[in-house]
């Protein structure tokens, strides 16, 4: 099997299980984001790849070879730490050349490599600068260059952009993605920021409480969340519970909705993204998949308009563009249409 494989990995710290039994395959050359709230075990998973933590049970395989017991310093994986961990007593160039120097690289080789890497991260002519005199974004780039100095098989990043301000973070996300595409290196990034994951990842691994919830490309995570946790964590959503009444039909408070991939019977939870809900002024005739509600509040953000609705006692949020805005004000009754393909049936979390 190619790529990086987690084979029944479990990690416990004393009585606390940080990572429950996890099996996962990360394909060669992909950009993968481990996404979840803090304390969900994503950093522990990354540290196990780097060898900074030993799994309690299970194996980690890289291109078919078991690397579980190989010490960190023999794995040759590049890693960028959350606080970057640049060596304060070395200059930019010495930091980047560190992995080459300890392997006995000659001065000329180190110099050439530093120049190439600094060009790669767009910081030319910075080699002699002391690390303390760099800005946050520059330190970020130096840490990336240092981690890539060995041309590692795996590129690991632990919340690498969390220290940057919002604007710089967004541009670094795009830059990091382009860098990864240029080098074609398997990259694993830990993040708690779902926008960051959506921007960069080929594959998102959603985790919470030490468990992997879903592994899928970002768009699929958004459109077809597997359970309520994923639906709620990625973007905002409306969770509606109901009971399967007939084939393809769900009885919910206030009417009947339609959905694909329904179980034959039983209680189900639906996730409907706010932007997929269609609003029209109440006209008295309700078809299947349409409920009646009251507008409780309208929040006009210019580029989009959010409608807070009360539908049969449940709070529902809908988002429209200015051109689709229905002609309603707070207090009006509206028809709330839930298109069949927008109603995603969730599994158990």
């Amino acid at each position, binding site marked *: 099997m190619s790529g990086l494989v987690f084979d029944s990995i479990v990690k416990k710290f004393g009585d606390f299980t940080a990572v429950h039994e996890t099996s996962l395959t990360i394909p060669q050359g992909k950009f993968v984001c481990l996404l979840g709230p803090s304390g969900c075990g994503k950093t522990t998973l990354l540290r196990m790849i780097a060898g900074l933590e030993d799994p309690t049970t299970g194996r980690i395989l890289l291109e078919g070879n078991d690397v579980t017991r190989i010490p960190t310093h023999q794995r*040759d994986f590049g890693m960028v730490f959350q606080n970057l961990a640049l060596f304060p007593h070395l200059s930019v160039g010495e930091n980047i050349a560190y992995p080459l120097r*300890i392997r006995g690289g000659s001065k000329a080789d180190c110099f050439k490599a530093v120049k190439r890497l600094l060009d790669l991260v767009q910081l030319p002519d910075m080699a002699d600068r002391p690390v303390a005199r760099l800005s946050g974004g520059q330190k970020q780039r130096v840490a990336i260059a240092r981690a890539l100095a*060995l041309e590692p098989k795996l590129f690991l990043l632990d919340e690498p952009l969390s220290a940057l301000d919002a604007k710089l973070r967004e541009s670094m996300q795009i830059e990091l993605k382009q860098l990864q595409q240029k080098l074609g290196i398997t990259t694993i990034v830990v993040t708690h920021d779902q926008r960051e994951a959506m921007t960069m990842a080929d594959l998102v691994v959603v985790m919470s409480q030490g468990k992997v919830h879903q592994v899928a490309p970002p768009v699929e995570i958004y459109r077809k969340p597997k359970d309520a946790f994923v639906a709620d964590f990625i973007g905002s959503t409306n969770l509606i519970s109901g009971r399967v009444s007939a084939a393809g039909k769900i009885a919910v408070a206030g009417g009947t909705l339609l959905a694909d991939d329904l179980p034959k019977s039983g209680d189900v939870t639906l996730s409907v993204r706010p932007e997929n809900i269609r609003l029209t002024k109440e006209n008295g005739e309700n078809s299947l998949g349409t409920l009646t509600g009251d507008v409780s509040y309208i929040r006009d953000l210019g580029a989009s308009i959010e409608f807070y609705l009360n539908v049969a006692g449940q709070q529902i949020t809908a988002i429209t563009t200015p051109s689709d805005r229905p002609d309603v004000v707070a207090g009006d009754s509206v028809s709330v249409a839930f298109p069949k393909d927008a109603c995603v049936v969730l599994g158990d979390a």
Partner: protein
Amino acid sequence: MKIKPGKFSDYAAIGFPAGMLTVFFVIPFGIMIAMSFFQRVQGAFYEPAFVFENYARFLSTFFAGILGFSVGLAALVAVVSVLLAFPFTYILTRMARQTQVVWLVFLLSVLSLSEVLIGFGWSTLLSRTAGITNLLVSLGIMDKPMSLSPSFGAVMTGMVYQTFPYTVLVLYPALSRLDPSLVEAARTLGSGPARSFLNVVVPALRNSIVSTLIMVFVFALGCYLLPQLLGKPSHWTLSVLITDQAIYQSNMPFAAAMAVFLVLVSLSLVAISLLYGKKENAG
């Protein structure tokens, strides 16, 4: 904008520490400097004067040799203490909180032992009749017990034993603040554990190491009981001689002159190392 303190009450806040410093440091030190120029009266005590006799007497090869030995011994004690304490403290800071507390309490209790207790304790431990060589004999490592004291090794052992807890306690804050991800980063970049310690931990804490060396050096320079208890007369330091002159020979002016000289030497050594450190940092 700079606020100018005008009223007397603005200075009141620094009055207390300034006063304490004056009463307990400036005045005694001033008296000592003054006394170093006094004239000794044979058979009596001393009388106020302004002579350089005491300093002149000091500038002989005999006292220069003792000064050299004192400084060398203090430097060696400082280096050995830091060499032992630095890895120890590094490992200590990586242990569980509970273990750290137990060790720190133990070290503090060692610190509470007086120099006299440490001196006599070690002289018993290094003696022929009751010392650790008896243990080695019963283990079959040595043929017969021998006396290890008085000797230079015994002086070193006693002094390092005394300075080790200080050294650990001074290094502890800096080492426990050290970002553990620095070492982890070195490991991901291909450094083994020993190499990352030498390549990353030691240089990152260079300033703490230098200041600890200076502190232990100054501390060891003032040590005067252990060299007498554990060493031969040839291992006696300048501090021993100062005590001898002041208390047994009743030659206060000469003792004061030697003390002033010792202070000047240690101050200039500290200044040199600080200056050197500053230059390194700037470059």
